[in-house]
């Protein structure tokens, strides 16, 4: 029996096990929406903006490990989702995005709401398809999911012209696909792994530098085993948080631009860096020519292009992190490696020394303005037993959350790393909540970032997604202001947000709950109150406007040359500014 393209779409998604679809309709996809409307297998979450749909699909994918799925219309629907596709591409998030396209006969005619979707998305997808014939639809969808979720994961776009969704064909869903130009390498080269094992056994100052690949490949267990077996401390990139338990004695926390002092010192002075599922991003390496200058480098990654892209690698191993680590552990266990604990002791002592010298610290005056770090620390303390999923936007609050929220497990951390997309956090949290309705999902947002997708409050309310949003409200584009403090002599060009919404009223306007602690001693109660409500909650947290995030490696600086606190002259200027702000009658921010 022949069925329409729209029905083939639905049946194919069901075969792929899709449960949730983030979508916003338009003329050319109405046939598909009509079919979706008449079924119950797939939950369609109507978003208020296509960027929101894209980030929700990303949040869903990061939390579940399965492909997130979005459906948008042609033209503006497509251009709106581009940011999310680019974000997913940078952070290797498996995503399948369907876009509507004008009828095949009209393609290329500048028809109403026509855009070259395949051309627009080519540089920001792992692959993309334009389906010109309904007979190709099922196999294309199969290929799209296959490409998105295998190898190094990434977003795939399937562009479906209106007539393809209306035309009929026999439905036959392929059981498997094979694409001759696409054969990811999963098993690492045995000989190289042996070399790596030998280097590990000999190293005196080794560091594991792990990235998001550990999470995609589900290699956490192996990573813990390797670290414990060989007594090697673990540096995590922003993307890897939760991939190794943050409270493990061997965890050094986050490395990189705002990483911990000891994580950065360790990688700088290390004699062996074992990179696992990481790509030597400039936010991690700092000045790349001086990254780990004394170390031999082992690099394990599924993507061969990541290896030797920007640093020299001594032992490259292309393969899936999990499988390579398994083999590495096997080899290490089979060879007698002597007493590694005592071999590493001086190194561990040195790291402990660094940790003592410059811990992550802040001073919270119980009577003073709320320090953002304090809020995040309390949020962590009060929720860690509930194993929450945590999303962030982009800016200082993101870095503080990365520093203070010690995630214990993988797939609990949703943040935009490679692209640094403000506005990511809230919709991503909604996507994760849609996947896990009973889990606690927190979003730590900036007052600047959250406004970029605040319209999704409607989605949260309508679809009963009880995400708890904590807006770290410094009335600034804080991270921009911090750079201006440090590198532009404190000239705050377009970083002060001046008029800003009352986030409590904003939440209420959408039918969500709004809360605001007004002083330090309110924080715990406000957090508890937010957690107790089974509705979306926005907590507006007025914080110290001038708090800066440290340590910081200035862009292009070396990893061991961190700024650890505000320079003295800056402190003076900020106090003067704060006086001006109070005179303006600022009541919200002065606790």
């Amino acid at each position, binding site marked *: 029996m022949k069925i329409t393209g729209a029905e083939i779409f639905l049946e194919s998604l069901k075969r792929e096990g899709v449960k949730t679809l983030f979508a916003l309709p338009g003329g050319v996809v109405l046939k598909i929406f009509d079919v979706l409307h008449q079924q119950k297998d797939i939950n369609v979450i109507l978003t208020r903006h296509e960027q929101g749909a894209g980030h929700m699909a990303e949040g869903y994918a990061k939390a579940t490990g399965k492909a997130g799925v979005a459906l948008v219309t042609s033209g503006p629907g497509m251009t709106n989702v581009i940011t999310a596709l680019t974000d997913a591409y940078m952070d290797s998030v498996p995503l399948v995005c369907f876009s509507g396209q004008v009828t095949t006969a009209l393609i290329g005619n500048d028809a109403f709401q026509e855009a070259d979707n*395949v051309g627009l998305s*080519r540089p920001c997808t792992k692959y993309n398809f334009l389906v010109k014939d309904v007979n190709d639809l099922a196999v294309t969808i199969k290929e799209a999911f296959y490409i998105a979720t295998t190898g190094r994961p990434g977003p795939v776009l399937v562009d479906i012209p209106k007539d393809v969704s209306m035309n009929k064909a026999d439905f036959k869903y392929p059981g498997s696909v094979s694409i*001759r*130009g696409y054969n990811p390498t999963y098993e690492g080269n045995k000989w190289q792994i042996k070399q790596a094992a030998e280097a590990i056994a000999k190293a005196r100052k080794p560091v594991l530098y792990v990235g998001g690949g550990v999470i995609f490949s589900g290699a956490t267990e192996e990573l813990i085993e390797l670290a414990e077996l060989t007594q090697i401390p673990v540096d995590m990139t922003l993307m890897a948080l939760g991939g190794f338990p943050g409270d493990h004695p061997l965890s050094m926390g986050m490395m990189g631009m705002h990483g911990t002092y000891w994580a950065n010192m360790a990688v700088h002075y290390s004699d062996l860096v074992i990179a696992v599922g990481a790509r030597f991003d400039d936010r991690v390496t700092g000045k790349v020519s001086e990254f780990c200058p004394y170390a031999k480098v082992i690099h394990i990654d599924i993507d*061969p*292009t990541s*290896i*030797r892209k920007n640093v020299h690698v001594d032992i490259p191993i292309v393969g899936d992190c999990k499988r390579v680590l398994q083999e590495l552990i096997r080899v290490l266990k089979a060879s007698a490696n002597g007493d590694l604990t005592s071999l590493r002791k001086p190194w561990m002592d040195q790291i402990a020394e660094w940790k003592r010298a410059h811990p992550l610290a802040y001073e919270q005056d119980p009577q003073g303005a709320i320090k953002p770090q304090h809020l995040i620390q309390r949020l962590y303390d009060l929720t860690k037993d509930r194993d929450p999923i945590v999303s962030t936007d982009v800016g200082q609050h993101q870095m503080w959350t990365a520093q203070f929220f010690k995630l214990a497990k993988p797939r609990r951390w949703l943040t935009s790393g490679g692209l640094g997309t403000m506005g990511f956090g809230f919709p991503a949290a909604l996507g994760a909540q849609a996947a896990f309705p009973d889990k606690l999902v927190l979003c730590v947002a900036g007052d600047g970032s959250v406004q970029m997708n605040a319209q999704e409050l409607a989605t949260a309310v309508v679809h009963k997604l009880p995400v708890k949003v904590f807006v770290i409200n410094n009335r600034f584009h804080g991270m921009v202001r911090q750079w201006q403090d440090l590198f532009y002599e404190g000239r705050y060009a377009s970083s002060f947000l001046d008029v800003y919404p009352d986030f409590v009223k904003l939440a209420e306007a959408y039918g969500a709950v709004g809360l605001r602690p007004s002083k330090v001693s309110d924080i715990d109660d406000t957090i508890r109150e937010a957690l107790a409500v089974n509705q979306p909650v926005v907590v507006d947290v007025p914080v110290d406007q001038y708090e800066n995030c440290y340590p910081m490696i200035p862009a292009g600086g070396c990893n061991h040359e961190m700024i650890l606190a505000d320079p003295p002259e800056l402190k003076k200027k900020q106090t003067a500014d704060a006086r001006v702000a109070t005179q303006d009658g600022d009541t919200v921010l002065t606790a």
Partner: protein
Amino acid sequence: MEHIISVLVENKFGALSRVAGLFSGRGFNIESLSVAPTIDPSVSLMTVVTSGDDRIIEQIVKQLNKLIDVIKVVDLNDSEFVARETALIKVQTRAEDRAEALRITDIFRGNVIDSTATTYTIEVTGDAKKIDAILNLLQPLGIKELARTGRVAIAREPIRPVVAQPKRVART
């Protein structure tokens, strides 16, 4: 250093723009790029002439391999290869230059493939040096138009050392 990279790709719309987009998006050089179908109609062969240090060339090869439409990538510089290019050169010829133009064409074993009272169109094939050389000589006569194919190249078949084969003894 200059490298010639041969890339087998799916003969699909979009494949060329993926390859071209890779080069422009990542800031790799393209000196020339030629594409044509192979004996297998589902596959096209692209020959890319590019340049860069070893690290860049390694990235180019890896990035090309990563493209899903790319089936095989060979850096021809890894072994011996032969490369050829064809140029079609339309030369402005005054009466007194026409014999000279023909002579030059002859020397380079080119052909005149179109001729009018005031022009010759010359076809010449060779390596890049040869094409440059003939262009140099024709320049003074006045080159009106020039179309070059860009280089195509192929690996040389390795020459197997001739070893004395043990004689077969016919059994009876």
